[in-house]
């Protein structure tokens, strides 16, 4: 593996990467760091597949009458794009890759509490992915990622059952990951590492895990009932047999709204780490940020009805869900203000991770504020089901979660691989992604406001300019994603070796070798200081 490097490493110390070789040492590993890499490869694969479907959609929408496919195919494209990106990329992204790698390292443990469950979760994920890929190849599915009945029951003639089974199975992988994190964070912290000394990434992982453990089983049982209805041709959600389609939506969003926080909370944790490190300052109002993390996780369970304002739920339900949705904005805003206050008078340096983190703050703020439009009953009637919604949740999921994921990947890449990547290219890529992203999705806010509905293969000619802008932006963004893919793979072989703590960051993960040994620490550390104990005079010279 290290034969072709120009930096001779005669005495390469034992680490988790060179401890063992061969495919068996990966597929049967119980090491949380290796399992994180298994997840990294798998979710990158699904990201490319999901991105491929997005690319076809943006090509289709260059022309008002549709450039390449028929409406039936277009329905399948946006359905598979959504299902793959949500369940097979975004939900596992930061928790299963960075969380798996970092949670034991950050709390000074040798591994997660249940290493076998951890490996099992990856196999479950792969099995669920197989079902979904099979269904994509066997004719696809056209219900939208939300599986709304009766599209998915009475009127379905596509592979709904296979996809439902795939998503059902994959849910258990995220339940197991969440369970593992909760138990590990409770029981395996190093001596002296009290709850309020934990890095904010750990708080974010904890809150995310609580949502995974509480929410995912409800999605599982919902999809189980849906598959049952589908296989046995009986009525559970079908109105023709007395079923209630709204019940499906309630159960679905009971998981799928909190699922948004499964995607964004980990990214917020990553951003907190990066902002503190690159401003050389302790996070402003550390405890408030901890509590806001928990508040988002808790409140997130009581807002699902805002997806159903126009479905015929009672107006009083609508009022309450609207009010509760506004409440989520408070802890979210607290985080944004506290990151900004951390930057204030900090010794800021701009490296690739910091660019992603700053991009996150801007894009998340836009995504969050436009969410308030949708949480208001009156404006939602106008905007519901338009491209405004599409733009809003892409600002959160791509502008927020994916930027956070890429920022974290760049921040901890030297720790994960023991190699450095070319910082110049990384900064260029971050800028290209930021520009491409805004060019793709900002026009969609306008399109939605003007009334262009989502999920249509055709559109009136007057919307063409904005759609072409969006497709052009998607191309730029695609190039932006390709650049890191190339230089990160390149760096694994040719990158200069990284020292123990290349960013001068605090945190236990930086106090062990890069890459860490299989056991993580030579000796379990004893923690005597608060998180983010950056001394002002320690400011880096560049």
């Amino acid at each position: 593996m290290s034969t072709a490097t120009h930096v001779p490493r005669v005495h390469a110390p034992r680490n988790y990467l060179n401890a063992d070789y061969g495919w068996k040492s990966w597929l049967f590993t119980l090491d949380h760091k290796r399992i994180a890499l298994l997840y990294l490869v798998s979710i990158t694969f699904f990201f490319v597949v999901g991105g491929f479907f997005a690319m076809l959609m943006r090509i289709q929408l260059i022309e008002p009458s549709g450039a390449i496919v028929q409406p039936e195919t277009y329905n399948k494209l946006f359905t598979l794009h959504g299902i793959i990106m949500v369940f097979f990329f975004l939900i596992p992204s930061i928790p299963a890759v960075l969380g798996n790698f970092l949670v034991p390292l950050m709390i000074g443990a040798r591994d997660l509490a249940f290493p076998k469950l951890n490996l099992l979760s990856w196999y479950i994920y792969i099995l669920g992915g197989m079902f979904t890929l099979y269904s994509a190849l066997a004719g696809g599915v056209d219900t939208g990622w939300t599986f709304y009945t009766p599209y998915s029951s009475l009127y379905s003639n596509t592979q709904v059952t296979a996809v439902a089974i795939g998503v059902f199975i994959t849910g258990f992988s995220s339940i197991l990951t969440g369970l593992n994190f909760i138990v590990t964070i409770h029981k395996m912290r190093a001596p002296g590492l009290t709850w309020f000394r934990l890095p904010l990434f750990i708080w974010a992982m904890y809150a995310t895990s609580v949502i995974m453990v509480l929410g995912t089983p409800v999605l599982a049982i919902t999809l189980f009932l849906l598959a049952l209805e589908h296989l046995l041709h009986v009525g559970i959600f079908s109105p023709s047999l007395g079923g209630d389609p709204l019940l499906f939506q309630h159960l679905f969003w009971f998981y799928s709204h909190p699922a948004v926080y499964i995607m964004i909370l980990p990214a917020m944790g990553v951003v907190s780490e990066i902002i503190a490190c690159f401003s050389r300052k302790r996070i402003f109002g550390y405890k408030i940020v901890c509590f806001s993390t928990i508040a988002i996780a808790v409140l997130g369970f009581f807002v699902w009805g805002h997806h159903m304002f126009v479905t015929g739920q009672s107006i009083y339900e609508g009022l309450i869900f609207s009010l509760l949705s506004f409440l989520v904005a408070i802890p979210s805003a607290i985080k944004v203000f506290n990151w900004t206050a951390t930057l204030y008078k900090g010794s800021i340096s701009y490296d690739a991770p910091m660019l992603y983190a700053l991009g996150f703050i801007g894009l998340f703020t836009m995504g969050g504020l436009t969410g308030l439009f949708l949480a208001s009953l009156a404006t939602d009637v106008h905007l519901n089901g338009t491209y405004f919604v599409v733009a809003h949740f892409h600002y959160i999921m791509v502008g927020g979660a994916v930027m956070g994921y890429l920022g974290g990947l760049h921040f901890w890449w030297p720790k994960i691989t023991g190699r450095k990547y070319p910082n110049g290219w990384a900064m260029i890529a971050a800028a290209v992604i930021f520009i491409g992203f805004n060019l793709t999705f900002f026009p969609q806010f306008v399109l939605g406001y003007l009334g262009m509905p989502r999920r249509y293969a055709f559109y009136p000619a007057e919307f063409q300019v904005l759609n072409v802008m969006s497709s052009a932006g998607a191309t730029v963004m695609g190039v932006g994603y390709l650049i890191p893919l190339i230089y990160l793979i390149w760096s694994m072989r040719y990158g200069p070796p990284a020292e123990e703590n290349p960013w001068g960051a605090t945190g236990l993960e930086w106090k062990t070798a890069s890459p860490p040994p299989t056991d993580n620490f030579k000796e379990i550390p004893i923690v005597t200081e608060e998180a983010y104990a950056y001394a002002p005079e320690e400011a880096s010279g560049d």
Partner: protein
Amino acid sequence: MLRRRPAVTDAEAQAHSEHVGLMHQFEDLDQQLDTDTLGIWVFLVTEIMFFGGMFTAYVLYRGLYFMAFEGGSRILDVRLGATNTAVLIASSLTMVLSVRAAQTGNRRALIGFLIATMILGSVFLGIKGFEYHQKFVEHVVPGLDWAPEGATLAHIAPGGLGHAQMFFIFYFAMTGLHAIHMIIGMGLLLWLLVRAYRNRFTPHYFAPVEVVALYWHFVDIVWIFLFPLLYLIGGRY
């Protein structure tokens, strides 16, 4: 697993090597037991939410179509359901006694109580299987064999047959999921039995018995809710 612990005293190292069953990531067996116990509790929370979604759907439809559900419930055999309830409660007792036996290091009692629990579990599944068989005889299995003859559901208003079918969907889905959990529990008990027979448990190392016991009690409690919801809403008793 050739991983080494950090420098420890000889006494500790000796104690460690004697602790059969200690995983490398833990400091000692106390931490391991604590962790395993918390792990199963978190898992049970997941299970509550899993069954909870189905209970929610059941409660909604029972409220909407109460008469049809009541009529469906009358077809169920309350005597068999009550017997099964008693059997499961008894199995919880033998299960907790086996935990006690493991804690006190009484291998004979542990094996005996594990076998007793498995017998009671089998009785439950046997009775459940017989009830399912009856439903096929009466043709009230939605999706597979749904052709209730005049007499079976005669007490339900003609318009309510579709809704009675929904009652049986929930009956089979809920008791079926519960039965799958029972079968998994039986497998876990068998695994414990083999390990107990090989004398793997000590008064210091009994976490697996405790964890399986918590799971078993949970499955019992689910039934304690299922029994009245499905069997006792018929209004005859």
